[in-house]
């Protein structure tokens, strides 16, 4: 199979660097170029010494590499629409970061323009390619637990805002400046926007969609942020499954400009755990554990060193397969729309102080 000529664009998203190894090693890909959002992003990109040329102008990148077939949009949420349009108009396949947009009208325009030209548009929800999640899905599908009655899930991390400032900017993260509630000094665009995975996973695990959600925002851990960093969500699916989600930035971090060892203050920088109650039993699952541990450099602080890195390999494999074999990715724009709509409903619930029906 001819390798897919691929590029990256933006280079400001927190997941940007996670693609480098896969794009370089996967023989089904030929990573030919990158295009940074600005000089600052280019400077950070160059630290990693990928050997792949980096441009600042997408037109220039395409004129130098007219054979680019696919682009990873590794950018802030408010840049996705314009970049997706740029790709669709040129028939270039798209791998979008986890939130294409929170503006549902814009979202529908994205669906329309992608379908019109027939390009692949895959959404990056990497948990699907995690081996623990694969086992979890098998266990549930086997029926051992019976019908699922309740799912509690965490998607908690440190806050990436110091390295990726757009994630603390309401306009760049949420798309516009919307207060969390009347008179609130905080705005939509924080931890919730960073953590769609558990909203997506429960739909896969149950085969059901959201019926209603209620969301409660807690006092921020980081006083400086103008977006939410602590919140909890409860609700029900249409099949009656109850759920409780914690998508907070509840793990404190050193305020590094570039992610590096010593980033975490709390020993474990990220956790996706699920507790599932079924009619026939219970299951607890840590999607990123167990791991290895140290208290060495740079801070001599007890630290969880992750041993899980498979996600981007499987994700890129699927993307290539969809491009070459004209398939629809599992996580496509249409599938993901209900997840994004639910996340918007969570914000509406905070604003109105009541449960929101979907």
């Amino acid at each position, binding site marked *: 199979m001819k390798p897919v000529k691929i590029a990256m664009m933006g280079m400001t998203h927190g997941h940007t660097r996670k693609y480098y190894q896969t794009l370089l090693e996967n023989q089904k890909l030929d990573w030919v170029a990158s295009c940074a959002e600005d000089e600052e992003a280019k400077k950070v990109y160059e630290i990693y010494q990928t050997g792949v040329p980096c441009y600042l102008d997408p037109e220039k990148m395409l004129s130098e590499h007219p054979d680019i077939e696919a682009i990873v949009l590794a950018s802030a949420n408010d840049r996705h629409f314009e970049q997706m349009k740029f790709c669709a108009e040129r028939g270039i396949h798209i791998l979008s970061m986890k939130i294409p947009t929170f503006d549902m009208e814009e979202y529908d325009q994205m669906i329309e323009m992608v379908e019109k030209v027939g390009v692949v548009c895959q959404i990056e929800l990497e948990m699907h390619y995690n081996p623990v999640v694969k086992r979890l899905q098998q266990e549930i599908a086997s029926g051992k637990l019976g019908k699922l*009655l*309740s799912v*509690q899930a965490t998607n908690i991390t440190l806050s990436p805002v110091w390295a990726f400032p757009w994630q603390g900017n309401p306009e760049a993260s949420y798309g516009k400046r919307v207060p969390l509630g009347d008179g609130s000094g905080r705005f939509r665009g924080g931890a919730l926007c960073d953590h769609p995975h558990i909203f997506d996973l429960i739909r896969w695990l149950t085969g059901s969609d959201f019926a*209603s959600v*209620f969301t*409660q*925002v*807690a*006092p*921020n*851990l*980081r*006083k400086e942020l103008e977006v939410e960093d*602590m919140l*909890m969500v*409860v*609700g*029900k699916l249409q099949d*009656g*499954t*109850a*759920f*409780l989600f*914690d998508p*907070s930035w*509840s*793990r*404190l971090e050193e305020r590094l400009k570039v992610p590096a060892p010593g980033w975490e203050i*709390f*020993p*474990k920088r990220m956790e996706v*755990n699920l*507790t599932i*109650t*079924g*009619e026939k*039993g*219970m299951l*607890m*699952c*840590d999607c990123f*554990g*167990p*791991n290895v*541990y140290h208290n060495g450099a740079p801070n001599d602080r*007890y630290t*969880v060193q992750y041993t899980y890195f498979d996600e981007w390999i499987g994700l890129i494999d699927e993307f290539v397969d969809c491009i070459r074999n004209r398939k629809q990715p599992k996580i496509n724009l249409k599938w993901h729309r209900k997840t994004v709509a639910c996340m918007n409903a969570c914000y509406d619930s905070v604003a109105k*102080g*009541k*449960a929101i029906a979907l």
Partner: protein
Amino acid sequence: MCEKLNASLDFLRDKYGCPAGMIVAGSEGFELALSNGKKVVLLPWRVERRFVELKKIVDGKTLEDVSTFRFAHFTAGGDPVKLAAKELDLAVFLANSPVRQIFAVRNGDSACNILASLENGMSASVECGTRLPAGTEAMDRHEIIARRGVASDRVVDTQVPQSSIYTWTDSGLRTYTDVDTELFGLTNEQVWVVRAAFAVLMKPALAEEWNHAAAAVRKYATAIVASDADNKPVIF
């Protein structure tokens, strides 16, 4: 059961010289019958060593500016609403603040998830379920998240409680976690009931405080059922 508990209580009373009292079975758990005829609802979780230490961490400002209590408790059978209401009392106890609002979502008698906000602005979530197979030890987790620091009764990067001793023999795996030398031989559940009774006898002011808290727990349980039924928050 009460006979064994009272023998242990008598041992402590005799050793430390405190007034008479007897542990009796009540409608919602154990109670302490005082010599003046009054009864005190026992709240054993309020004397459980790990929660006492967590409270010290909060009260002593080891954690600064608590934002959120994140609790979970899963059992083999029982009532998830009552379980959640008791967990909420633990949050109230640790936060030194009453509950302002509860929103609850249940699934029959199997699961109960609640979000609560406290008068002092702190937030709490409680996840409860009762579908562990019969004979399985309860599983719980209590985490307190603050601007400065996180405290928990579970080890980082683990999902289930650890034990003090693990033995592998022909009879399989056995684990032991003994928590009280003076009351050695009682189960942990029994230890905390005796310690709760002893605490009230040693500090009589707890009697009113705990009866008041027990009444609040009943109120939380009623609110949980109402919130789930109406799909609305209950504001106190």
